[in-house]
């Protein structure tokens, strides 16, 4: 039963990673950039929802919605001000700019909220634990809801990218930027939408993360951000199913490594697995093999 408890814990953490990784992978697939500020958008989402819980007397779902709206606006603003002017330049320049944005968000949060960690009240505090198998397997509501929300997002995103016009144009831009433009797709608008969706997902991930691990600091987003990024690469960066698979696997590996091998070394094990996977499959689990042209 303990193994099963760890497994559900891993699935729950993996779901959070998967949701964050979706943001990374969509942006990478379309804009071909590593958005290092994504982890900090999660943190901002966490703070916004924290504020609505603490200072505003509105229902939980409304708080979450407000967090998503703020993060969406923030993501689009960052894209417009910092990344759009650099489109078509070296990806290293964009990478450093993303790091600058990440510093900016962290330090802005530090100025506004201070460095002392805030204790985040779980979104599901009023929901009781679920006891299975005569009380031997106890599932916290956070675990269940995180997994459920992740599944919901996966299905929704899959439908969105395959059925809707915007989703199709996103895939077209990811496939070939110039050809998509020639087909009459507004590339700038599509990229902006991708950032919007990624950032809205980041807000959800932030709330779920803080519900399970209830300390909120300006640096809360950076480590999950890096891990989720690893998850996106693990699954094959640019691929949406890859991000989901990568995120879930990474979460499970991390929790199991923490439980059975070593708490201190769990991160090293996670990164070690990533390296092994990339050596065997250089473009990740579900990544496409890119042909090299002379």
């Amino acid at each position, binding site marked *: 039963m303990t193994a099963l408890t760890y497994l559900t814990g891993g699935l729950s953490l993996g779901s959070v990673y998967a949701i964050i990784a979706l943001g990374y992978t969509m942006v990478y697939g379309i804009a071909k950039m590593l958005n290092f500020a994504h982890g900090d958008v999660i943190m901002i989402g966490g703070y916004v929802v924290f504020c609505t819980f603490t200072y505003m007397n509105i229902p939980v779902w409304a708080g979450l919605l407000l967090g998503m709206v703020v993060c969406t606006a923030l993501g689009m603003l960052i894209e417009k001000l910092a990344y759009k002017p650099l489109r078509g330049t070296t*990806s290293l320049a964009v990478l450093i700019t993303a790091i600058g944005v990440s510093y900016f968000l962290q330090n802005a949060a530090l100025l506004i909220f201070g460095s002392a960690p805030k204790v985040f009240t779980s979104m599901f505090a009023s929901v009781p634990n679920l006891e299975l198998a005569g009380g031997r397997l106890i599932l916290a509501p956070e675990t269940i809801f995180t997994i459920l929300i992740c599944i919901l997002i996966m299905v929704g995103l899959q439908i969105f990218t395959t059925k809707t016009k915007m989703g199709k144009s996103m895939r077209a831009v990811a496939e070939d930027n110039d050809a998509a433009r020639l087909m009459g797709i507004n590339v700038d608008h599509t990229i902006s939408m991708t950032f919007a969706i990624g950032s809205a997902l980041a807000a959800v991930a932030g709330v779920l993360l803080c519900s399970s691990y209830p300390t909120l600091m300006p640096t809360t987003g950076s480590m999950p951000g890096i891990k989720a990024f690893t998850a996106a690469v693990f699954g094959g960066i640019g691929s949406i199913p890859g991000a989901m698979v990568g995120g879930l696997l990474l979460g499970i590996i991390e929790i199991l490594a923490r439980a059975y091998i070593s708490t201190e070394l769990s991160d090293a094990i996670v990164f070690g697995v990533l390296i092994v996977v990339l050596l065997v499959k250089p473009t990740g689990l579900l990544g496409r093999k890119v042909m090299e042209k002379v």
Partner: protein
Amino acid sequence: MSILTKFTGKNTNQYRRSAFWSYGVVIAGFILVSAMNSAGMISNSLQGQLVPICAYIAMAVSLNLVVGISGELSLGHAGFMSVGAFTGVIAATLFQSLPFLWVKLLIAIVVGGLFAGLAGVIIGVPVLRLRGDYLAIVTLAFGEIIRNVLNVIYVGLDEKGLQVATSMEGIHLSENGSMILNGPMGATGITKLSTFFAGFLLVLFTLFVVLNLVNSKHGRAIMAMRDNRIAAESVGLSATNFKMTAFVTGAILAGMSGALFALNYSTVAPVKFNFNTSILVLVFVVLGGIGNITGSIISAAVLTILPEALRQFSDYRMLTYAIVLILVMLATNNPQMKMFLSGLSKQVKAVFSKTKVYHRPQRAEEKGGAE
């Protein structure tokens, strides 16, 4: 797909000239700072920064070898720095009975460099099989793994010798023994050995190694590999060999600067060399100009001093730093902004050349203005 698509094309002559500038900047900087120091013009806080500045300059130059010259984006350079730092501290403690300070420092730096080089070989073999962004992620992963592993390494020393374990309980020291590494606490009770002069010499050594490598047959092969790997391989250059040379040299130099850095403090924790430090050094390299060694030196020095100089803004200093970073990246990379800036500099140049060539015939003046 390469993450670095555009480089400054330079011929051998230009490299020679830039080598001259690199040495010149370092020597002039050292003389200036020494003179200011003896005149008492340098504040205490800045004095404490002198050795770290040297270490960061050496880090930036060595990372520029990997990122700029070899064209592989490394996000884990601080990992090599930490390997060098902690092995250097252990070596310095082992040889603490030796008579001269500089001998101990030299041993520590050499040992730090060797171990970091070893780590470079171990990491380079798998890493250099990958390309572009994937390579960047794996270097990031290795940097984190190094930090994580150092978090669980405990090293103690007594008359029987070194003891290494993965927990505090694993080490049984005699009464005279002392701990050198304490897991997440890092190295404690370090005897401070580093001096500004030693830092200056290390920077010169780093420059000597990097500039000579760049100007050698090997260096040209490395750059050929960066510019077009397939073309370079088709004329018989081995990609792995040359990339490995640059990567391991960068690792060794980072390890040496790590040893210098650690021996400047009484305690150093592994967290000091995390992902943020790797990024910090990468920012030095990018802002100084990719592949531009002199630029790395200047930007490493300026950007280490800048947060100190911005102290008066206290809370806002890191925010200012972030905004400055974004604005500089936009100003130097946005095509429109670049065009505007180069147009501006042309106009400024034209104004000056006009005043200079005032009496010349009309045609020369036009030419001067059009350049």
